[in-house]
């Protein structure tokens, strides 16, 4: 339940990012480049001796930023670039390597810029490199044979070690990447192993560290962009998109064989209809469950909650049998969780809840927290915790109920500190009560 909510938030974040990129592509905004390397885009509305005032819009919000002249490196208006203060040590390295890419100023980059960025980053160690010790079990077979011989053994087979020990623990990710670099050095004389290691490295930089330039570097080294036997092509395309060049991403996607993850990436990039077209044709094939899960996710990212529900319902109709029984069962679970999440949070419409008092419960710290919600005239009139066995809930019980009434909903409410579990239980129980009462 909690995971569903988080996932939902994340998805909407990605969606917002996608929209911004599209908007940024349409209108050329003014840009202020600060001496620190950071850049902000918007409309320059005022300028005097000491400062420049920039009006920026994010979503429906508009606000102003007043920057002192002496902190500004350059002002870009249309095609004019006016340098106010010279950068120390020449131009900012690799255009965006310094200073994080911040929404809404996420910059569109040319193919040349992307290529240069990938090469430059890929050839230099990341900033955490020096402080990360090289550690791995001595028992590992560093020759990295494929397929790994013998039974599953995460202390002997490199792939299984990464799978079992490194991937599940954020704290070990850098250490794992450091180890894979070491593996490459160890196997320097075995070109057949190089590509596999490089492909793995690309995956780790992408999936674990979200270091897209380095992921792209190692995938390109492995030849992912030129050989569609690699499944990582879609992810490399995503790297291009995340780095600020959607055409490169689309070009690569068209050049490689269709995969289920293509559906997801297209949806994330805002190409919902194209994603759904692919999903529909894939759904005629043997893995209809997978195609429909991806299609449902694509709809959800685009805010098409009812269509998402239909796809997830279709997943549940695929019978769990045959060779792929395990996979289909897992997709059933996933679809059910998503259906619940949509019904509880996305489709909550108080206008469709008749007047009355509704009860439900959700697991708290040690036992269920029971809640009674009263709805009157399409508004949440009151939320009351009727029973609980929480140990330290501080003010969460009264606080959370008050906030639900104040915002007339169950999303966008921050938990009472140190009583997060209780707060979330109240939110979930309220959502369940309202979803159960919705006509």
């Amino acid at each position, binding site marked *: 339940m909690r995971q569903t909510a988080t996932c939902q938030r994340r998805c909407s974040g990605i969606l917002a990012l996608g929209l911004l990129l599209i908007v940024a592509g349409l209108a050329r905004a003014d840009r202020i480049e600060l001496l620190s390397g950071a850049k902000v885009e918007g409309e320059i509305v005022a300028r005097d001796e000491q400062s420049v005032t920039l009006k*920026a819009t994010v979503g429906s919000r508009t606000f102003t930023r007043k*920057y002192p002249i002496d902190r500004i490196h350059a002002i870009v208006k249309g095609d004019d670039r006016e340098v106010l203060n010279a950068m120390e040590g020449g131009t900012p390295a690799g255009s965006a390597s310094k200073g994080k890419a911040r929404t809404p100023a996420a910059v569109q980059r040319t193919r040349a810029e992307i290529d240069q960025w990938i090469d430059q980053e890929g050839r230099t160690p990341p900033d955490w490199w020096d402080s990360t010790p090289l550690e791995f079990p001595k028992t590992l077979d560093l020759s990295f044979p494929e397929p790994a011989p013998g039974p599953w053994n995460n202390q002997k087979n490199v792939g299984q070690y990464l799978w079992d020990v490194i991937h599940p623990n954020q704290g070990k990710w850098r250490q794992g990447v450091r180890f894979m*670099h070491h593996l490459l050095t160890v196997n320097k004389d075995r070109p057949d192993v190089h590509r596999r290691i490089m492909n793995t490295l690309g995956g780790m930089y992408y999936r674990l560290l979200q270091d897209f330039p380095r992921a792209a570097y190692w995938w390109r080294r492995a030849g992912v962009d030129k050989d569609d036997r690699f499944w990582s092509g879609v992810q490399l395309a995503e790297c291009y998109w995340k780095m600020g060049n959607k055409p490169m991403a689309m070009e690569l996607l068209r050049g490689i064989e269709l995969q289920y993850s293509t559906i997801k990436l297209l949806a994330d990039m805002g190409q919902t209809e194209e994603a759904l077209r692919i999903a529909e044709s894939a759904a005629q094939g043997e893995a209809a469950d997978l195609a429909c899960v991806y299609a449902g996710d694509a709809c959800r990212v685009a805010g098409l909650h009812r269509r998402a529900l239909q796809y997830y319902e279709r997943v549940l109709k695929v019978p769990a049998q045959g060779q792929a029984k395990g996979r289909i069962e897992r997709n059933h679970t996933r679809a059910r969780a998503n259906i619940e999440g949509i019904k509880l949070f996305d489709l909550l419409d108080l206008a469709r809840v008749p007047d009355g008092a509704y009860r439900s419960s959700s*697991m708290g710290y040690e036992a269920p927290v029971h809640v009674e919600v009263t709805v009157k005239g399409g508004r949440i009139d009151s939320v009351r915790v009727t029973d609980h066995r929480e140990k*330290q809930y501080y003010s969460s019980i009264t606080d959370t109920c008050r906030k639900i009434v104040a915002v007339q909903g169950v999303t*966008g409410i921050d938990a009472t500190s140190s009583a997060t579990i209780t707060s979330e239980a109240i939110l979930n129980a309220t959502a369940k009560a309202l979803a159960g009462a919705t006509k």
Partner: protein
Amino acid sequence: MIRRTLKRLAPTWVASPLRRSIQTACFLAFLGLFFYVCCPYPTRPAGVWDNWLPQDANLQTGRVGAVTDGAGDESLAAGRVVHVLDRGVDPAEYLGPFRIAEAGDRQLLLDPRDPLTPEQLDKLGTSFGPWSLSDDPPGAWPSHYARGLAAKERVAAELFLLLDPLVSVSTAIAGRTWVWSLGAAAVAIAVCLVVPRGFCAYVCPMGTLLDLFDWLLRPWRRRFVRSGRSPGGTDCSPGGTGRLSARGENAQPWWAWLKYLLLLAVLAAAMFGVLISGFVAAIPVATRALAFLAAPLQTAAFRGWYQVPPFGPGHFVSLGLLAAIVALGLLRPRFWCRYLCPTGAVFSTAGLLRLTQRKVQPGCIACGRCVEICPFDAIAADFSTRPTECTLCRTCGGVCPTKAIRYVPRWSQIEDRPTDEADVRSRARRRFLAGTLGTAAGIGAGIAAAGLTRTLGAGFAVADAFRPVRPPGSVPEPQFLATCIRCGECYRACPNDVLQPLSFEQGLEGLWTPQVVADWSGCEPSCNNCGRVCPTGAIRALALEEKSAARMALAVVDQSTCLPYAGVEACQLCVDECVTAGYHAIEFMQVGTEVDRSGRPIEGTGYLAPVVLAEKCVGCGLCQTRCRAINAVEKGLIAESAIRLQAGSGKEDRLVTGSYRALRRREERRPKPDPTGVKAGEGYLPEFLK
């Protein structure tokens, strides 16, 4: 009229208002310390407010507006300092502390608390939120329980325990250590040279408690005494004087000497390293009574019955002891204080060096009122003073119709009735004999008690002996047992009753000592209260950063029952708890992955299972609490928590002195075996790619 009513209802108040006032003040202070200062619950964690969006910002001054679509919060008022964290970037970026200049409906105007550096101004200028505002800077270790107690603790929460000299002296002897509360005890004794045994009449909360019960028990006491079962042949009938009728007019009953015997026994046992003063010393008996009886009632009343931990045999033994002490009041008022209390015996002994004394002038008309009213049996049949019993409570002076009773310096020349010291001298031989016998009996009893306790004790020699999880900062177990006074202050100050008394799991030696009951609750990261209130240093008073490095136990996963390991279902309750608490001591391991025909792992199969990092786990037990509550109790999937604390050698840090943090740093610095010889910073690109 008022005076008459008062005289009937509370004659001792009229006779000695000063004493009763001080006594009441001390008792209220004792209750206040116990029910208010030591009560951990009113405190609140540092506030966090998410989803604030920055508005117009002036990057010259750093002034910035912020709005929220959420519910808003009235506690975000002008003047409050909040720390701003930009969650719009990954990782989240700290923008610094800001003071709220203006607060409106769901909007704020923020000024930097300290002038911002150009770098900070740039960060602010490029920050688009959402922001999270908080009372504490990001990454700050939570400290609300510790701060809560510190803010309330104007005087030491364990003040009365510090003043009980028997607590400090016996602990110092048994633990072979300096106990800093000896200083407080010395002050108490010094004051009692001026007001001999004044502690008992003016200060001791146990005495006041007994006064209250004695008052309540009055009707039954009369009936009880009338039925002729009065001990020692005292004439307590309404017309009588309350004096002894047998065995010599001025002599006290033999059991008046029991308190010295108990004192000797306690000290003798302490010489053998066994601390039994907690069983009988006045203040620990009182605090434990409150901890076992009143604290649960307070919890039940304000936080719900379900929050009251179940009672064990140890509770009943302690409450039985208290009931017995109270019931003795049926025989005589303050029976315990007069005849049994070993703390009183310390003051009585110190009274031999007294500087002041009660004296009776010739004006005495032998009316007997003083004898009747004296709560401490300190007035002999001839109205002379038993100076080692007299507490200078001045009640007798208040009721004396001729004002013949004076409280003067010991060397004062005013005429006095011969005290029973003269009488004693006349029977010196008998007294000497009795004294010797008594001393021998006391020491013998002490040795016997020590022997018994040890025999039924912790059994350090036995390999599989019960090893309770002790509070964080507890000194090594043998010394812990020798210095823990069993006063119950730590259970009282412990949020959520993580600390609960042992019964007889560790034999007699461990009775009422605190143990961590992780099945009930886990130790709060923001709390160091147990060490703060411990009067003897059995639990060291640790700063929060020290406490959070002190390992009290090690959590061990039972792979046969843990749901992911057993392949039952996905579960990460323990990991979530550990991350939320800030220890990050449990990692994941993927288990039960299925492979396809080519040996590749199938995505989505298997579970993430917990792996405890022994070097990071402090044994707080939060993981065990949650696993038990949800998986065992609520879902009924397992019989008991699948992750459980284990104490014992190698699993806990028990330092007498020194820093736990330094200990952990030393461990970390131990060079790890380098499998390759590759130096840090090398090996990013292999030669063939350069």
